[in-house]
């Protein structure tokens, strides 16, 4: 309780967290803190350690090193293991599989955690009704989990988790088992619930669109390490590594390897940009966003000729992908565009690169 008095403590603070399973290190030296009420999204490819990180936040796994503090109180540490039990963290977890108890009705599933927490009967019944209404599943109260659809099970799982009014909500890829339409619907539903409860949320996903649309804070994980942590727009605008640059954003940004020839960086015999953007580097990777690559020749702009691969119309323009050897390059064409696969396509680089990275993947700041 002392920690509360300081007032400044972050809702979640992760310090130097490491998790090893035998010789394998799943989570490597992670540092993240977010203020109360944030919506933190942990995003990364499968096997990047994001679920392990979430399970450590939930108290289902103990860290090997480092510590986790909720509102200034250390709940787990490498030295002490799980200090506060999963049930005593005032945190709720929505499982990827929903983990509904099959032998209890929908209402029973929601009420059980409240029973465990010894809520008096009346208050419990009121709360169950309340969350059923909040999730719009009041009609399903007496059904068993096996009798309702996947989307409804998802809502029950969320209702069960928020019923005890946890101050921290944890989500483990909750939308991955839903079809595309339902997923978009549940995305806004989850954001509505986040606003309604005000609980600090941590959300694990491999879908960068979910990360960009829902998060107040995003941590991009790769190989157990945080590649970059910050606000979604900031990550999009100023990616710290090539991994972040290519992982986030729709359509994915282009990364062109270029080498210094005289005073220019040259890609595939085409001089693209001045060598002064990365002094001291002889080889770099240049980041061009799809909107900076135009289909067709443009006066005074460098261009390459690639082989057409595919086109997808997006909001009145067309996203065109072409192959140059093994490299995919995506640009935008005005209106609709189509061609036969293998046809030559001219792609022009109409702006200077958005970012420059070293061959190692690190950002080169200018």
């Amino acid at each position, binding site marked *: 309780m002392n920690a509360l008095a300081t007032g400044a403590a972050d809702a979640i603070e992760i310090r130097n967290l490491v998790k090893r399973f035998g010789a394998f290190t799943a989570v490597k030296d992670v540092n993240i803190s977010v203020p109360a009420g944030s919506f933190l999204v942990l995003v990364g490819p499968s096997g990047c350690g994001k679920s392990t990180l979430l399970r450590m936040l*939930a*108290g289902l796994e103990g860290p090997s090193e480092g510590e986790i503090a909720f509102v200034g109180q250390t709940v787990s540490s490498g030295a002490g293991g799980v200090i506060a039990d999963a*049930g005593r963290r005032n945190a709720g977890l929505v499982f990827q599989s*929903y983990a509904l*108890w*099959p*032998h209890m009705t929908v209402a029973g599933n929601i009420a059980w955690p409240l029973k465990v*927490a010894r809520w008096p009967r009346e208050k419990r019944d009121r709360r169950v009704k309340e969350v059923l209404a909040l999730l719009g599943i009041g009609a399903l109260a007496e059904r068993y*989990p096996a*009798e309702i659809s996947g989307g409804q099970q998802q809502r029950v799982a969320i209702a069960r988790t928020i019923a005890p009014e946890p101050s921290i909500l944890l989500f483990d890829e909750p939308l991955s088992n839903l079809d595309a339409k339902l997923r978009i619907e549940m995305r806004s539903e989850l954001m509505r619930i986040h606003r309604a409860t005000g609980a600090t949320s941590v959300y694990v996903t491999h879908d960068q669109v979910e990360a960009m649309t829902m998060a107040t804070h995003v941590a991009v994980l790769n190989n157990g390490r945080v590649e970059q942590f910050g606000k979604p727009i900031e990550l999009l605008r100023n990616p710290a590594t090539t991994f972040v640059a290519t992982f986030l954003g729709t359509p994915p940004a282009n990364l062109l390897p270029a080498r210094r020839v005289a005073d220019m960086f040259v890609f595939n015999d085409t001089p693209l940009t001045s060598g002064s953007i990365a002094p001291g580097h002889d080889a770099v990777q240049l980041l061009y966003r799809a909107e900076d690559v135009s289909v067709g020749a443009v006066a005074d702009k460098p261009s390459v000729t690639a082989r057409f691969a595919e086109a997808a119309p997006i909001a009145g323009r067309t996203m065109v992908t072409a192959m140059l050897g093994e490299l995919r390059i995506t640009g935008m064409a005005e209106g609709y565009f189509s061609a036969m696969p293998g046809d030559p396509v001219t792609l022009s680089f109409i702006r200077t690169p958005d970012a420059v990275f070293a061959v190692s993947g690190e950002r080169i700041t200018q």
Partner: protein
Amino acid sequence: MTFISTFAPSGGRRLLRSGFVMPAILVAIVAILVVAPLARILLSTLTPEGIAAWQAVLVSPLSFNLWWRPLFNTMVLGFGVASGCLILGGFLAWLVVLTDVPGRRLLGLMGTLPYMIPSFAAALAWGTLFRNSRLGGSAGFFETNGLAIPDWLAWGLVPTAIVLIAHYYSLAYTIIAAALSSVGADLVEAGQMAGAKRPRIFFGIILPVVTPALIAAASLTFAGAVANFAAPALLGLPVRMQTLSTRLFGMIETGQNERGFVLALLLIAVSALFLWMSDRIVSGRKAFVTVTGKGGRTKRFPLGAWRWPLFAVAVTIGLLTTVVPVLVLAASSLAPQSGALFSNWTLHFWIGEGGGEIAQGQAGIFRNPVLIDALWNTIRLGLVVALTTMLLGLALAYTIVQRRGSLLATILSQLAFVPLLVPSIAFAAAYIALFGAPIGPLPSLYGTFALLVIAASAHNLPFAVQSGRSVLGQISADIEESARLTGAGLLRRLFAIIFPLAIRGLFAGAILVFVKMVRDLSLVVLLFTATSPVLSMVAYRYAAEGFMQFANAITLVILIVCLAASFLAHGLQNRVQKWKQP
């Protein structure tokens, strides 16, 4: 046959096109195998003699001894064995699946072994150790070595129940362990997140989720104990403890067929009633399928200081129900005096020549022509029944799957599962009712090898259809259809695609049927005659006559045949489907 006529008007054209001959043959076969014997045994008890038998069994001065007393014993055995199996099997399943006990694989293997050992092996081993001198004859190992064994521990209900528990608990273990491992870690962790402590999670989540499996395990072990013949016959009959199955056997053996049939029907009723009741409890809205968690992970609870003590308890249970009985049988088959298990060992009972002092001048089992005959008969029976069962099962399963949802498929699958409700000794009685006398121009089949094969195939039908379905389930419709798109005809597809994919499953099923037949006693005990002896029956006869060493030696032969078959199957399976090798 009436099924065909009810089915035919629904779509005559479709029937012709999709080949009606095969399904019609199958319905006929199943009707003859399953419906006819049961109908016949019921009808036999509705004749004047049959009615008299009903009266004698149910409402007469005899009925206490014919029906009520055996019923009481049967029920006590059924409930006792079911509870014992739930406790032992449940404990072992909990230990292996839900805790961090050391040697989990070993314990899991030990949990499944006792079911492989015939129940009369355990009964014989028990007798060898615990028999007392009350009935004359030589005493068992303990009493010979100065440890007085009270009657209740030597004979009757208690030892019968113990022996049956030792046999059937592995069935309960298998069922409960499968259910426990389907309880995903997520379900448990969701409970932990709610703040529930371990007991609360166990009683509030895990136990209710596996309750259907517990009920299934209880009812199957109950049905097994109620139907079992060997254990009560070996340990109960000498002190006149009768169960329904031994009573039924006694009636038919002494030529009182109608009374035997009445008892068979009552036994079927008792067994089916409980199986049906348990099915009612489990089905319905609560017949939930567990949603498994990520990768079927299960949560293992740490046992702390209890790890090794509980491991020791589990290993002891495993040893007492597998290794110890086999060792006792082996020692006994070598010991000339049945009480002195470990002295004066001789191979006489195996290969000795007749005419000596030992065993009233009888030759060892491998010099006994009856026994060689029985060995050959047993293996032949096992092989033939395995073949017919799997072929019939595959044909039935294929028809049922192909016509899913049709009346024909429903009738076939329902009929094929009827034998599950019928204890094997009662099933044998039904076969005597049907085939005991000539039918029209057909001679009586009683006592022939053919009757044994037919009855055994019929009794294995539920298993056959089940494994046929699971084999076919492994071959997705896509695989078959993609072969069809290449233009391959039915036979070509059958041999090039379906057969290679199905062979492993068929083989595994066939081996199980083989083992079941080789160690079966309760089905063959009524259908056996001197002209078609099988090993288990010869062993039973020897035991009934007091030649324990011979009985034990033959039981060991049965065990070795079963084990050899299992190993052979294991070795062959990897050869048959090379792409599945690790």
